[in-house]
């Protein structure tokens, strides 16, 4: 098992007592898998991702990557936030190479890797540009390239396309799928967008809200070639409806649920 989460609970202290945000989360992600967690706001999905990244500590329970318990943030788990988090004083090239620089990779070695990843995200022509000169979609591609350049074991994504307009979002989804098919990087992504989750993932964890807990695990039987036209096909809509109903709390319709 590549990433595993066992009996995870997270409680936040508030003014009166404490608030249970995550309740008994158990999940796993295998090598090369693309897994999404979908949940409405209040399902604690961002908290879950922060715990996986090691930016926050669970109240009880454990998170392991390749058997090693997560005790803090590290380069083995790359993270892409929803907000644009590029370093504004660095060029695109410097942003992508920053993780390698932090870990003491030589300049020459860094340069060739950075160019590889700029190629992967299709931004070779923008190597010398500054973040403020880029569009929202391009910035997220740089953020993804930056996370990938450090060669993490798993890529964690926190609603990475949430701030983008619908066309850019669809382009970025196809881009991410293509990238995943090429690199087979393990990806764990959280989103509130059911369509996005069905389109991208092999498997979906459906979270319930307040406290967040795993309601269902849904395996998505996907064709190999995915293009956004499949979003209009019946099987796709069936998945989407099932999960949307689960999120609404309407579970009357049993379906292909694992």
């Amino acid at each position, binding site marked *: 098992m590549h990433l595993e989460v066992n009996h995870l609970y997270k409680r936040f202290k508030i003014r009166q007592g404490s608030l249970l945000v995550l309740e008994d989360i158990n999940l796993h992600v295998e090598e090369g898998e693309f897994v999404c967690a979908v949940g409405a706001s209040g399902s604690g999905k961002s908290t879950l991702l922060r715990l996986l*990244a*090691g*930016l926050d500590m669970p109240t009880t329970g454990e998170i392991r990557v390749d058997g090693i318990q997560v005790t*803090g*943030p*590290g*380069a083995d*788990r*790359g*993270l892409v*936030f929803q*907000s644009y*988090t590029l*370093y*504004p*004083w660095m060029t695109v090239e410097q942003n992508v190479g*920053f*993780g390698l*620089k*932090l*870990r003491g990779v030589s300049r020459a070695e860094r340069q060739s890797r950075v160019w590889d990843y700029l190629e992967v995200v299709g931004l070779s022509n923008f190597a010398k540009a*500054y973040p*403020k000169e880029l569009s929202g979609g391009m910035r997220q591609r740089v953020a993804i390239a*930056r*996370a990938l350049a*450090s060669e*993490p074991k798993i890529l*964690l994504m926190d609603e990475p396309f949430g701030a983008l307009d619908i066309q850019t979002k669809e382009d970025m989804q196809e881009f991410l799928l293509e990238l995943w098919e090429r690199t087979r990087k393990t990806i764990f992504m959280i989103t509130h967008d059911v369509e996005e989750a069905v389109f991208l993932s092999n498997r979906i964890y459906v979270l319930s809200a307040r406290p967040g807990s795993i309601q269902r695990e849904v395996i998505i039987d996907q064709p190999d070639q995915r293009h956004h036209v499949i979003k209009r096909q019946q099987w796709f809509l069936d998945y989407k409806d099932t999960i949307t109903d689960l999120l609404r709390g309407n579970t009357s319709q049993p379906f292909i649920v694992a």
Partner: protein
Amino acid sequence: MTSTPEPLPLTMPRTKMLRPSRFWQIAEPIAPPLSWLFFSLSIGIPLILWALISNSGWVEPLFLPTPQQVGRAAQGLWASGDLPKDIVASVWRISVGFLLAAIISIPLGVIMGTFASIRALLEPIIGIIRYMPAPAFIPLLILYFGIGEAPKIILIFIGVLFFNTLMVMDSVKFVPKELIETTYTLGGNRWQTLFQVIFPYVTPNIIDACRVNLAAAWQLVIVAELIAATEGLGRRISVAGRFLKTDEIFVGLIVIGIIGLAIDLLFRLLLRTTCHWASK
């Protein structure tokens, strides 16, 4: 049928639109030619008023000398070598006092802004000292350091140190948390995050804080020289006052204004050249 509300009385205009304006635009720049015009008016009108009033004979030259008189006084002071000496003395005191304060306050402010522990340790004491007016330390400084250069430089040093530290500290608050967390997930440790992320991010704010506090340093150097000095622009003004040489007082004030403006522009230039990424 649902009832619709009564229409507003006809006296109220229905389609009133905001009229365009070149002068009163809010949150928009004005045209560059207009901007230059206002720049010259801003300096030109007071100069012209001064020349008119002082030459008209309404006011005694003892209270308001004419620009010509002030110009002649400046020439005289320059030719005798007094004015250059005064400028060098004041600029030297400010430079040394300010640089020492900057060398300590910048790292201290960044560290206090970054680590809540260091902030909790130092903010209370700095917060108290900040409210003590620096000139109030003069008697103590004379007692400890005599009347040489040391007390003047130290006065500027303590006057700048605490304000600059707190301003730099505040600027660290604006570093987005996600930027720091991203750095951790890229494998950065805390020192790398401090030096390679937080410090570059706040550099424009540090330059700006220094620009503001340098103005405070000018206030203090003048105060320091009023007490005990043989040369300096503040000394020049107080001596001129004693001998009722109003024109020389004006020379001192104008020279201070010009040097201050020049330094201000220099800092803006520094900001624009080193931190072009921070401009809009």
